[in-house]
């Protein structure tokens, strides 16, 4: 905790650009690859290579954003915490942080040392989850995106500007409804 505050002072004195983004080296895979039909189960692998701790903003949560065409979100592999703070990544569907930020679903870090702080880890963070294409007759939205959230956005840390990283869009397609090819009517 003390080290974090010392670093904070150093950062204030530095010429670090406050609008820099904190996340970099993001990769993702979808298995199987699109397009997707109703009932199909898709495995999403996502890795955040590096989280840069702007103003000692620590990473605290990953939010999964899914289009209306998805259902049955299931976590498979939680993010790691290499060199990070004491605590663990918890799978959660919804949480309201002290800042009032309504978050979820996804993983959020429970810092067992200092409540409402994220983890001091800079990554990499690799996670995996499964999602299912919901039954539908229409080309519903199947977008998949990820939000990476630092603890200055959640109210756990407020010394300096927060990261302004954009949402990462992993997929932006629609359901491919099953085609129904009825044959002609035959008469015996």
């Amino acid at each position, binding site marked *: 905790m003390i080290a974090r505050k010392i670093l904070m002072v150093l950062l204030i004195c530095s010429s670090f650009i406050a609008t820099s983004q904190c996340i970099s080296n993001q990769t993702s895979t979808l298995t199987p690859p699109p397009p997707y039909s*109703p*009932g199909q189960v898709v495995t999403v692998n996502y890795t955040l290579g590096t989280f840069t701790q702007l103003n000692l903003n620590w990473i605290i949560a990953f939010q999964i954003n899914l289009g209306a065409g998805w259902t049955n979100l299931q976590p498979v592999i939680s993010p790691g915490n290499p060199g990070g703070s004491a605590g663990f990544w918890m799978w959660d569907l919804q949480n309201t942080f002290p800042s009032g930020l309504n978050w979820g679903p996804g993983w959020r870090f429970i810092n067992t040392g200092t409540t409402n702080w994220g983890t001091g880890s800079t990554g990499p963070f690799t996670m995996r989850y499964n999602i299912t294409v919901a*039954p*539908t*007759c229409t080309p519903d939205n199947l977008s998949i995106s990820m939000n990476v959230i630092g603890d200055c956005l959640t109210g756990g840390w407020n010394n300096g500007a927060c990261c302004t990283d954009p949402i990462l869009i992993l997929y932006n397609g629609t359901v491919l*409804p*099953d085609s*129904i*090819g*009825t*044959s*002609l*009517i*035959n*008469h*015996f």
Partner: protein
Amino acid sequence: MNYKESKQALLALFILMLLMIVTTLSFGQTTINPDTVCANAIGEQYFVTNTPTSTYNWTVTGGGTLQTGQTTNSITVDWGGVMGLWINAVEVIESNAAGCPGAPILLDVFVLDLSGNAIGPFCPGDPTAGLAGTPIGGTWSGTGVAGNNFDPSVGIGTYMLTYTMAGCTTTINVVVNGGPVTGPIQHF
């Protein structure tokens, strides 16, 4: 052709017949639109290629009554006796496992009600009488029939004549009576 050649020819014929059977079973025979049925026919079967996970909603109009098979790919229909061309008399809409409906598949049906003109009774020596079936275009058959005529010279009796068209039939009975048996002229 020697024994070996005969054996090869028979094998080729067998394979050809097998292919014809497989082709027929695989692709079926598509009913030409409009379909033709006989008036008051019962248990006429209509079907489309089955998709096991689908359900089928059938609608029958034109004086027909759906008897069995609703929700399946095959139904039976009892037809009424009103002759005419009934547009879209048989309709099916397939829905897949997700409940999504496909495009309606339609079949027009011509209900064919045959009739024949009443002729006779005849006496021996009467001239040939014309046979008239409705609608025209069918064929007459039976004892004493030649083309579209009946010849009473066929002899004394009651004859059932059949008028056939498009697989439908109707019958009429024709009577040929015997003439009086007059004795020889006597001279008192």
